[in-house]
């Protein structure tokens, strides 16, 4: 399975539960959705693709590279401003203004050119009217995980990261402020089974598991919102 970087912890738990329940092994590779999109167009041997942006699976479907009727919007992502616990400015109190503080020299975001979370971060910064002011401070991570790593290691004093990473064990101890969903285009995350998948039945079983109450509860736990339209399979 190719999974978006923001699924690191949620997918870890999902696959563990799935393995326990069914005995089928799950091999997950995490990375930027844009990278996987390129690789899949060039025949990368994945069975399932869990993208952070539903556009990539949609494009693969249009190119005829996917199993019909398997496209599924499994979650809606959220972004937060995150700082380590010992940051000089309190983002929970100041929200956007924290990024303008002098103690924040570098702000890490994912690369907006190919990471959905990076694009959402830029959109939200523009909506908040501070994009031009903070642009000199921005540093770009390869994907949302590297952006999180830049800020978690202290090299960047603040970052706009996926909520799913911010609530994970590694980053839970920091301070976060949730960016209102209306400030950026919805981070619709979609999954699809690949046409050349070698293990289609197992892939279908996993997708069903993700759609189940147990799967959705796990995704919720990691800060994802579950789209309430149950007829996901037919959504185009």
């Amino acid at each position, binding site marked *: 399975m190719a999974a978006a970087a923001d699924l690191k912890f949620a997918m870890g738990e999902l696959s563990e539960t799935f393995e326990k329940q069914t005995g089928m092994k799950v091999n997950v590779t995490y990375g*930027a959705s*844009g*990278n996987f999109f*390129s690789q899949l167009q060039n025949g990368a041997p994945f069975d399932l693709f869990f993208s952070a942006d539903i556009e990539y699976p949609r494009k693969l479907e249009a190119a005829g590279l996917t199993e019909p009727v398997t496209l599924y919007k499994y979650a809606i992502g959220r972004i937060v401003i995150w700082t380590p616990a010992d940051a000089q400015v309190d983002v929970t109190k100041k929200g956007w203004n924290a990024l303008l503080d002098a103690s924040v*020299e*570098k702000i*890490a975001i994912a*690369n907006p*050119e*190919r990471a959905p979370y990076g694009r959402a971060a830029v959109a939200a910064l523009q909506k908040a009217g501070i994009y031009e002011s903070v642009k000199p401070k*921005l*540093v*770009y*991570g*390869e994907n949302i995980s590297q952006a999180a790593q*830049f800020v978690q*290691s*202290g*090299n*960047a004093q603040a970052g706009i990261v996926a909520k799913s990473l911010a609530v994970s064990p590694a980053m839970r101890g920091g301070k976060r402020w949730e960016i209102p969903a209306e400030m950026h285009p919805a981070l619709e995350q979609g999954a699809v089974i690949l046409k050349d998948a070698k293990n289609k039945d197992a892939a279908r079983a996993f997708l069903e598991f993700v759609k189940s109450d147990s799967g959705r509860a796990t995704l919720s736990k990691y800060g994802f919102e579950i789209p309430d339209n149950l007829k996901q399979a037919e959504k185009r």
Partner: protein
Amino acid sequence: MEALWLSTKLAASVMVILLAIGMPVAYWLAYSSWRGKFLVESVVALPLVLPPTVLGFYALVAMGPRGPLGKLWIALFGHGLAFTFGGLILASVLYSFPFAVQPLIVSFEGVDRRLLDASAVLGAGSVRTFLRVILPLSLPGVITAAVLSFAHTLGEFGVVLMVGGNLAGVTRTVSIDIYDHVQSLEYGEANRMALVLLVISFAVLSVVYAVNRRVWMPWAAK
């Protein structure tokens, strides 16, 4: 071609720094008779073996506010070292270190010991001997060291990816730029930049091998 200029600046700076610090290290390794020399040689050769991402990652941690280097830098300059051109220079110097030092060692060791003895007998101190005897005779090695550190830094990717932050004009080197274009499916642009880099790298390497094969001897004008 901002990225190419940035990469060239980085490669040139690293080449100069590596020659400056590489020569004393190579001199010591070539002429010292300390039995623990092999340990130092192994440390020097480590960047050849370690994945660039490992080097880059630990460089990032060391440069961070909790790392030893980071703390010192912030105390001296008030801001961090990561995501700056200076940070890239530091990481590249570490990464290309063996590429400078090893050719220098080989060249220094290749100088006929009798010439060094003769120089000492005639009253020349070690600095004078180095400048007048060892260095001129080691010119192929110095040129190789210079050219290889330049070329190796020009092609660097993994280390820059880990510590750079991809800032245009500051840390977006040509290898990162090509990667960006590929990931954005802009293959035409990626191909163009890759071709330029290929041609430059080939020219640079041709210099190394021409000198080593005595095809071209820049010092022969004496």
